């Protein structure tokens, strides 16, 4: 389909043209593709930052607490993506709860300033201006991180579980401190988990379209939105298929890199380097 060409509204000519792929590399579309990759990178990085400490905490806590924490992280995974995005809207919109809370904070601060007769100096601004938390890139990234963090926690947790606790104790025994143990023993062992976490977060992020659609504005469209529009409103199926095939190619490339990495990793392990 992606090699075909749109002839009129309903007919598509399958003639092995590459014109759709060429169109995907120019101007707006390439920029959007690039931007989606950047947004996904930022999201993945933030997920990694948040997920690592949480995974550590879960992995080292006692059995009972561990199971409670795990279930409480898995439950949001099972609730609908759409519902979770919607629940974020209620918090973030201009008259949402975050802004309400900030407004209350501002008013009480103002009240205290009034007590000390400082209100006329406009120390904290003349009046409260609600932050615009919706319809921008910030909200899209926040939404993506919120939705996809559990995908990062679980693989890191799984590899942390596999590390033999005796090895850590041996490391302390032999005089290494926390930092050295972390970098020399834990890091090499959890790198596999981190990489599968990155893949699990990055790929769905790249293809997501509900979150930018609902939380994002005009300037925060991602490649998923463009694909969706080609099929649902612009009605240019060949171009839409070309774009989604580019996504699939990116996915395959990432998986290939991961495969090569795991091969290298196991070879290094066999030689006893790491």
């Amino acid at each position: 389909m992606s090699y075909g060409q749109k002839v009129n509204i309903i007919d598509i000519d399958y003639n092995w043209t590459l014109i759709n792929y060429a169109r995907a590399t120019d101007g707006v579309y390439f920029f959007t593709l690039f931007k989606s990759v950047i947004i996904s990178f930022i999201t993945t990085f933030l997920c990694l930052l948040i997920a690592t400490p949480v995974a550590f905490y879960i992995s080292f806590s006692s059995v009972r607490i561990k199971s409670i924490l795990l279930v409480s992280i898995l439950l949001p995974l099972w609730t609908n993506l759409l519902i979770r995005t919607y629940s974020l809207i209620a918090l973030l919109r201009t008259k949402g709860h975050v802004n309400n809370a900030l407004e209350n904070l501002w008013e009480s601060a103002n009240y205290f300033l009034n007590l000390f007769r400082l209100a006329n100096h406009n120390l904290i601004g003349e009046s409260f201006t609600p932050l615009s938390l919706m319809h921008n890139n910030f909200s899209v990234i926040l939404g993506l991180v919120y939705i996809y963090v559990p995908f990062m926690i679980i693989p890191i947790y799984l590899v942390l579980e596999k590390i033999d606790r005796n090895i850590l104790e041996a490391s302390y025994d032999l005089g290494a401190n926390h930092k050295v143990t972390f970098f020399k023993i834990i890091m090499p062992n959890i790198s596999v988990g981190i990489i599968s976490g990155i893949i699990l977060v990055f790929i769905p992020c790249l293809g997501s379209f509900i979150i930018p659609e609902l939380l994002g504005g005009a300037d925060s469209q991602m490649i998923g939105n463009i694909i969706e529009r080609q099929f649902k409103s612009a009605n240019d199926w060949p171009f839409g298929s070309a774009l989604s095939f580019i996504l699939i190619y990116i996915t395959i490339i990432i998986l290939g890199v991961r495969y090569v990495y795991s091969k290298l990793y196991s070879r290094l392990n066999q030689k006893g380097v790491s």
Partner: protein
Amino acid sequence: MSKRIRHYTPINYTKNNTLKIITFIFLVILYLPIINLIMFSFNDSKRNIVWRGFTSKYYEKLFENEMLFLAFSNSITIAITSTIISTFLGLTTAIALWKFNFYLKKYYDVALLFPIIIPEICMGISMLVFFSYINWPNFQLWPFTLSSIIIAHVSFIFPFVAIIIRARLSMLNNEILEAGLDLGANKYQVIRKIIIPFMSPALVASALLAFTLSLDDFVVTFFTSGPNSVTLPVKIYSMVRFGISPEINAISTLLILIIIICTYFAIRFLSKSNREIIK
């Protein structure tokens, strides 16, 4: 000045306060929107900004709304049908991959994982293109209007089922099967009397998983559904695009409830099956 010797208590990251605080804040942020959503479904205010007192009138409204009821019954029908089909397909795939060696098996394995790993939107689009390419008839009669969605759901759900059942099958001792064959059972008796009872917990768990996956799915359904076949998530999406209302909160709460119940039973069955093996 004496040099202080620091003792490192072996691996107790739970005593680390920073980690504790980060985890706590994380969980609060993870649940805050959802709890807020559930709470405000009982709110007696149309614009739903401030709390105006408890009411259940939006739930009553839901049951009167015919469109929503239709969407809900569509969703349930799709979920049940695709659960049955994909459990059966997943079971047979798992047995085939476990028992037999065949040409290109390794690549078949990878192909099985493919629907899980590619972005969902690509899956939805490929389904849409596929149905239009083979000229899938546009049924008007009710249960058949859902056929394309059911096929799409089965095609991305059955790999999940196959993976779960295969994990369970790999724990089955091959000698038991041989003993069964030795004692005069034929192939089908072995399947019925040994394999099926052995993996019934995994079967139930994966069926429940398939049910939740199908009920929850939005992206694939969005691309394959027509005007005659609106499901609950698609309906919610079109409502969300018009803005926030307590009715969406109410219907979402109900959906969350159904899914939590299903997941609870799935996890219980899975852990039960694992415990049996440890015994």
